[in-house]
């Protein structure tokens, strides 16, 4: 455990010594602010329409959760596909290229500690990035006094879903980074794999029966969807956690195998 923390601290040290972390936070906030503002202006437009129609029933149905956060969380889940590859690409690949991994092999730490340390470092970057976007629900809570307010429980579930999908993406990226010694190759392959996990769902519209269900189950964003609606289903949690465990296990095997090659 102590070694895992040491590795994680080293990774965080490098994330913040290089511009990676800052650039990633900035981009994440810029893009998500863009989505938030456009969703907010849409909300404004719709509520004005309803008011003009003077329809209290429709007005009652209007809420932040459905109008803003569902869309926002869906978008953030997609943005993660573009950002996670850049976070994970150097984790193992760079150590292999610069041979610093030999240092880790000759000190009394286990491959599992190496893998977990790197994973936790990346997870904490993800957590901070997501934490920065808490600004939006907080702003709504403060400014929109008259409206129904923010349903914090649903918002929290949405964040849980985002964190889980990010954790799954990072596990995949970490594994791919352990397969190569080129950061660029690692980033590209990770990006394609994550992108596929999203766009494979588009084909579900044309499919029928069990195959449609199967494709939808494979699609990562489907599982995020229920979280953004404010529901937790065991199958979604199982989906994300099994990707995390599989990714970490595969990374562990890849790191171990690297010494035997």
């Amino acid at each position: 455990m102590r070694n895992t923390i040491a590795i994680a601290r080293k990774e965080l040290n490098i994330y913040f010594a290089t511009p990676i972390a800052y650039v990633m936070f900035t981009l994440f906030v810029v893009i998500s602010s863009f989505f938030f503002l456009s969703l907010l202006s849409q909300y404004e437009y719709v509520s004005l329409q309803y008011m003009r129609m003077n329809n209290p029933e429709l007005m009652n149905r209007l809420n932040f959760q459905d109008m803003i956060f569902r869309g926002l969380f869906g978008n953030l889940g997609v943005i993660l596909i573009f950002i996670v590859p850049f976070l994970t690409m150097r984790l193992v690949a760079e150590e292999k290229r610069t041979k610093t991994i030999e240092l880790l092999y000759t000190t009394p730490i286990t491959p599992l500690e190496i893998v977990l340390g790197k994973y936790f470092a990346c997870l904490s970057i993800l957590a901070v990035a997501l934490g920065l976007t808490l600004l939006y629900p907080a702003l709504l809570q403060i400014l929109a006094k008259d409206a129904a307010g923010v349903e914090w429980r649903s918002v929290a579930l949405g964040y849980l879903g985002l964190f889980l999908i990010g954790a799954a993406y990072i596990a995949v990226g970490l594994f791919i980074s352990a397969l190569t010694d080129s950061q660029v190759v690692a980033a590209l392959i990770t990006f394609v794999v994550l992108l596929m996990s999203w766009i494979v769902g588009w084909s579900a519209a044309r499919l029928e029966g069990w195959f449609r269900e199967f494709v939808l189950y494979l699609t990562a964003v489907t599982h995020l969807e229920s979280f953004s609606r404010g529901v937790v289903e065991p199958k979604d949690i199982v989906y994300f956690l099994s990707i995390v465990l599989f990714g970490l296990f595969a990374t562990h095997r890849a790191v171990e195998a690297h010494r035997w090659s």
Partner: protein
Amino acid sequence: MIEVSHLVKNYRDLKAVQDVSFEVKTGEILGFLGPNGAGKTTTMRILTGVIPPTSGSVKVCGFDVFEQPMEVKRRIGYLPENPPLYTEMTVRDYLGFVASIKGVGRKARKAEVESVAVKTNCDKFIERVIGNLSKGQRQRVGLAQALLGDPEVLILDEPTVGLDPAQIIEVRELIKSLAGKHTIVLSTHILPEVTATCQRVLIIAGGKVVANDDLSGLRDRYAGAATADGRPGPAPSLEEIFLKLTSA
């Protein structure tokens, strides 16, 4: 302290190390020589547990590198050919990290980093980012890293590469001062370095041991023909012995 017996390492068709056996006693400095591609680095990487051997066994401090790698790794400091440095970190952060994964306790860590940095003359640039250091400075950080945690065994792969003459002398003095308490395996291309620091010499060529003796023993064995009046012939230099053994 180090027992290597019948070590073999093949990389697919390439036989990097073929049946190498030797021993290093506690407190000894072994000069490990050989032409490029002779298998020096491969042997050192097996000794430190970076890669597994194809066959044969290595024991360090009585522990088998393969069976009890953790016990061995706790007792070894290794400076590879290219110092394994994280160029984004400062020297202090880097040494602190290495100390922590070598199991130096949180409280002792700062003092340990400080004392090793002073020993290797890294203290003058300890706050600088490693990426901005010169080759000689990086080499010294690499050496500092190997010394952290005060390991019983030091495996140094060409520790004086990239240093200027004054630094070479400093590092040699440092290595000599470590002898006695530490067991050291030192690989190098610079033969005077061996004469200056090592008690015993191991020469390998083509993956095989061609000489394993102390310096005077080697000189005696490869001395020139005795002169007519019965006095021993001129003692050859280590260069001559090296060339003779490795060209065969």
